[in-house]
């Protein structure tokens, strides 16, 4: 038992070590810039890997975009200006979380709809099977009553 927890802890530690080594070193004029930088890296998608954001990617284009975002922040550009910069070059797809629009509505609501449907099906199946077993029970009771009635009838004869 002790060995397993030790192995688990070691595995978790090794994961954190890996993420530290893949970070480039960026220097900033102030702490606010640094915070904004790392937030923005989470906000934008790596155009090459497509299913990860910039902070989770080491692709050459991701490194270049990180460099550009760093440069823009240090130049004093606002978050809106940086977003405009990226979207005018890479389109809406550069946003890691898809913009909430008519055609992305199904993307956002889909999981909830699916979940509600599954819950509904499970609950209704459950209720119908409970009903079935209750019906069966009722049937059994009726059968027993009828049998005892018949018995009595025969015995009286």
């Amino acid at each position: 038992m002790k060995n397993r927890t030790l192995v688990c802890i070691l595995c978790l530690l090794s994961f954190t070590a890996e993420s530290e080594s893949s970070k480039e070193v960026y220097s900033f004029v102030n702490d606010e810039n640094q915070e904004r930088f790392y937030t923005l890296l989470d906000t934008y998608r790596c155009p090459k890997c497509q299913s990860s954001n910039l902070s989770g990617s080491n692709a050459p284009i991701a490194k270049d975009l990180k460099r550009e975002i760093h440069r823009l922040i240090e130049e004093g550009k606002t978050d809106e200006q940086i977003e405009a910069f990226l979207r005018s070059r890479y389109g809406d797809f550069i946003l890691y979380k898809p913009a909430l629009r008519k055609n992305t509505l199904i993307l956002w609501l889909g999981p909830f709809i699916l979940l509600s449907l599954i819950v509904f099906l499970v609950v209704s199946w459950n209720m119908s099977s409970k009903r079935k077993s209750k019906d069966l029970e009722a049937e059994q009771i009726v059968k027993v009553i009828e049998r005892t009635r018949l018995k009595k009838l025969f015995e009286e004869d």
Partner: protein
Amino acid sequence: MNRITHYLPLIFFIFLIIGLFTFLDNEESDLRSVLLDKNFPDFSLSKLENQEIVTKNDLVELPSLLNVWATWCIACRVEHPYLMRLRNESTINIYGLNYKDDRSKAINLLDQIGDPYEFSIFDHEGILAIDLGVYGAPETFLIDKSGIIRVRHVGVLTPEVWEEKFNGVLNDLKEDEK
């Protein structure tokens, strides 16, 4: 009633798959179509072949193709013979964008396999590439004589892609000139 609820998850799953496939396609084209009908971005970079600085004004042979390539790009070798063919057989000129590459390796490669480009722009840091929304190699752009991007293709340029995406537009542009 029981039978319907029995098959409902399967039916919903099938609709979900169909829905996802149709919407996934839309995302792909979003990524590629941002620069269409926009001006080719300004730039000031060195040529690959020497230290001469080139800008957008040096892309004079228009309409033309801009092909993004690099020595580390394997797929670029696949399209290279076709680029050579295009240069020789058709009237279109091709400019190269050497993307995040080693200068001497790139020059050597062109010496080895042939140079289909009027010249190549040496974009070591990938800054022109970012302005073009490029995220890898190979990619090919069609620029019309006003310097406007008309077509963008991500991936290997094959005869089929040429027919489908480029040829029609090119012919339209030539018609407009007459």
